[in-house]
């Protein structure tokens, strides 16, 4: 758990972070979202003490970080930055092994861990371990960046616009990847972005920041339904809030289940249980269908979902 109590950070006369209070529960993904210069990165960098705070308290698991050794503190916090920050003179494997090496793990344990992480992030160890960062694509390099942050199994993960420099398709892939990994490893994560859609997709709770203050700290659904101010309302988009809400709910919630799963016939169009309602609606509108089949992860047809019901109850 990370607690920020009345934290302020000044640069000269300018106030970058203005007396904020924020509690991040263990295992949740807290996304700090806001436009550039709103203080979100400054907040993140105070948590691992890359920046000292001007006043207030920051507690990690109840302990004030000001009393800890900064290196020890950071070794227990994975750190991912925009543009990866991979060291160009080290191979992929060497980069991932960085923190375990600083912690003086035995070599066999490091090697095993590097291989495990590369597999987790869908990078083939045989082809990629010996490459240098310049030889990777942007998406691969950022996967390595995430693997490096997870290497020593830290309790906390700090991510500073990690997918900001990637193209839309790669970013989408990495977001899905992150959701999958988060389900497996459950790290307390602080994630900074200026992209509200990214925030809605990844967050357990979102903190909307502007001019150094937190305007609203709540779940994605509450932020969409009850924006605390005009600024938040503008940020989430007044017009397409309905669709955004739909994209937060899985098909599972509104489907009509069959009595027992049917084996699928080949060629049947359909959606999966954990796809979101927005996708299901989009498919039905495009193909002009009143309803569409729903499949589970094993590919069995478990029910149907209808256009009518999404429109009535989806938001």
């Amino acid at each position, binding site marked *: 758990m990370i607690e920020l109590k009345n934290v302020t950070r000044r640069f000269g006369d300018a106030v970058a972070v203005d007396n904020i209070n924020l509690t991040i529960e263990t295992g949740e993904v807290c996304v700090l979202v806001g436009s550039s210069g709103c203080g979100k990165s400054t907040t993140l*960098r105070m948590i*691992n003490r*890359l920046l000292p705070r001007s006043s207030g308290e920051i507690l990690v698991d109840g302990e004030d970080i000001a009393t800890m050794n900064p*290196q*020890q*503190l*950071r*070794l227990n916090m*994975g*750190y991912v*930055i*925009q*543009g*990866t*920050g*991979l*060291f*160009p*003179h080290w191979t992929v494997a060497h980069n991932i092994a*960085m*923190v375990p090496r*600083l912690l003086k793990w035995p070599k066999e344990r490091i090697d095993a861990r590097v291989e495990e992480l590369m597999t987790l992030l869908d990078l083939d160890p045989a082809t990629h371990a010996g*490459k*240098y960062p*310049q*030889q990777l694509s942007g998406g691969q390099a950022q996967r390595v960046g995430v693997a*490096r*942050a997870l290497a020593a199994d830290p309790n906390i993960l*700090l991510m500073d616009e990690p997918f900001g420099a990637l193209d839309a398709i790669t970013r989408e892939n990495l977001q899905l990847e992150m959701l999958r990994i988060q389900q497996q490893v459950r790290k307390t994560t602080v994630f900074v972005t200026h992209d509200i859609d990214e925030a809605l997709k990844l967050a357990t709770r979102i903190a909307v920041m502007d001019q150094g203050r937190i305007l609203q700290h709540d779940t994605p659904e509450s932020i969409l339904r009850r924006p605390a101010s005009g600024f938040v309302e503008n940020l989430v988009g007044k017009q397409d809030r309905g669709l955004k809400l739909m994209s937060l709910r899985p098909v599972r919630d509104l489907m009509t289940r069959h009595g027992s799963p049917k084996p699928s016939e080949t060629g049947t169009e359909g959606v999966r249980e954990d796809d979101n309602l927005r996708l299901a609606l989009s498919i039905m509108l495009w193909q002009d269908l009143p309803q569409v089949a729903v499949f589970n992860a094993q590919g069995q047809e478990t029910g149907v979902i209808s256009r009518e019901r999404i429109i009535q109850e989806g938001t």
Partner: protein
Amino acid sequence: MSVIRPDSIRTLPNRVIPALGLLALALVWLLDFGTIQPNRIVSGTGHGLLSAVGWAGAVGVTGSLSACVVLSVLPMRQRYGMLLGLVGLSLAMLPLLLDVFATRHLPEGSPYARSSIGPGFWCLLFLLSLMMIEILGRLRADRWLQFLLLAVIVGSWLVLFRSDGLESLSLVREYNARPDAFAQALRAHLALAFGAVGIGAGLAFVLALKMIRSPAWQRPILGAVSFLQTIPSLAVFGLLIAPLSALSSAFPLLQSLGIRGIGWTPALLALIAYSLLPMVRNTFVAITDVPEHLVDAGRGMGMTERQLFFQVKLPLALPVMIEGVRITTIQAIGLTAVAALIGAGGFGSFIFQGLGQAAMDLVLLGALPTIALALLADALLTMLAASLRPTPATA
């Protein structure tokens, strides 16, 4: 993406080699190939290519150069390999032409007569070397092939120069008159140049670190080392004589260490002073230019400042720092020749002796090894810097 496939680039006609080859052909026929002197001082009579090496030699030279020109424009895939062999062999065999020249023209029974190398030969050597560089570039030859080639050519020259046929060559005569002095000069030259670069590198590293730690020192330090660089080298050598003489006469201990107003001490001090600017500047720029996001990543993941310096900043800065050492080394090898004026020894002593006696061959005996040393140091340090670069940009 280029639409030209690599192997079609290899078969396109080359423009550089024909130009160099034709120029070499013209110069080798127009200029004197060698000179025969009745003794050391009297200026000699020049001989053109045909007169110098006879029909056989002239045909050999003309034939190889023409073959290079023709080969380089033929659309063949293996031609650069063949050119490499041809030019390499020509370079390795060049001293043989001097041997032929000496046996044809040196008068019998006149022990003072000597043959010397003419401008035609120098041009041939220079242009063949340029052709070799072009071929190596086209072949994208790796370092080891280049090194092997250099070793073969230099080895063959050493063997040929040690044989009897070239004994009459003035350069060889000058060397044979003073082999011990030559070895002594080589040692002194190397010790001075590399000693100065070594000490200078250590000092420059410390100064650069000081500049990074305390920005207030940046301007004074850079100003001081730039100022040192602007003083003419002869002036520094001269200026150091008086204070060092005073010091050594005041402290007999220094005198017993060999520290005096002239000799190696002022030379070493001056060379160190000159070596500072390129090395301080390169070290400082290299370390401060390490991208901020890498420093941020390293620090953010728990590196101490010391680990950050030795594991990230220094390795990334090293190629640029070595570039500074390379510039300094070449400069120091050249300046050491001038230091002979204040009695520091080295190859410069031959140059100044030769100038004094109007014996150009003695000047060459000092100048050629100086050039060779500088080229060798350049090649070795370039290789070192290249091997330390992180990686190729793409796979």
